[in-house]
């Protein structure tokens, strides 16, 4: 998945009655955001929204 021009990996798992999601930025693989929800969709959408917000702040400079 790509968000704000950056590759993002979403990982979800269920623990008991809750769904947990994590978004990382693939390279370097750092965790950007975590979320918890009653459904997988809810948790996934929440983590996507937060990751998108953080990624939009990343500035690119001419190298």
């Amino acid at each position, binding site marked *: 998945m790509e968000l704000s021009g*950056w590759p993002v990996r979403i990982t979800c798992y269920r623990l008991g009655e809750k769904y947990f999601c994590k978004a990382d930025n693939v390279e*370097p693989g*750092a965790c950007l955001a975590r979320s918890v929800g009653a459904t997988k969709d809810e948790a996934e959408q929440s983590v996507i929204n937060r990751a998108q917000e953080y990624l939009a702040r990343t500035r*690119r400079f001419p190298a």
Partner: protein
Amino acid sequence: MSEYVHPEVLVSTDWVVNHTSDSKVRIVEVDVDTKAYNEGHVSNALGWAWNTQLCDTVRRDIIPKAQFETLMGDSGIKNDTTVILYGDNNNWFAAWAFWQLKIYGHSDVRIMNGGRKKWITEGKYLSVDVPRFSPVAYKTSDPDLSIRAFLPQVQEASRRATVELVDVRSPQEFTGEILSPPGLPETCQRGGHIPGARSITWSKACNDDGTFRTFDELKALYQNEGISGTKPVIAYCRIGERSSHSWFVLKYLLGFSDVKNYDGSWTEWGNLVGAPIERGAVSAVSA
């Protein structure tokens, strides 16, 4: 296929399953933050917060000796306890903790190969119970600073090229296109890398499941960039945690004798007034 030079510093997830109740073993999760631990962790594992429990919270430094002794003692860790570290982000902060435990001379510390990622992928049990252990006395010797690089050593290495500098950040951070990993706060004034450094991204040392690549693959990865262990090596990244991962690979899996982690890393160098900086392309011989 050759074996790692120090295979004893790694344990598998299955090994951990069989030792969660072993009184001679203490399992500790160290993540980028403590949210993951709170969601669920290996049974009987403690959770350490790297930014408060493994850092001096006033000045920028690792924790002082007395605080380290308190952390270990309060965690029920004796000097002869086998400490198993694991965490998220492919064990970045577990490696950071490993590095500090070695600075303070803990003899038996190991990393769970694959970390939290592999544990979850394999569907292994996650507990939400926080274990309590009776405090014990823990004493350490003076810190071993032979595995830690400070700014003057790095400046000397950059000037004289007598030491190999390895930048383990992403290629985009190395070239100066971005100042921090995408989505994370910019913590430096300038982008680029230390003059003379080679770009060997930490993640090239890992398989998709989070485990380390084989000895032969790791050896080839570094040799392709001219890093063979014949010269001392200093690894750096942004804040020193990714480079502690690479330090672990170079020191223990490849067995290089003189490897240091520069924990000041780019947040120190990239904020220094007047420090020389190189920008632009990754070396042409990149793997």
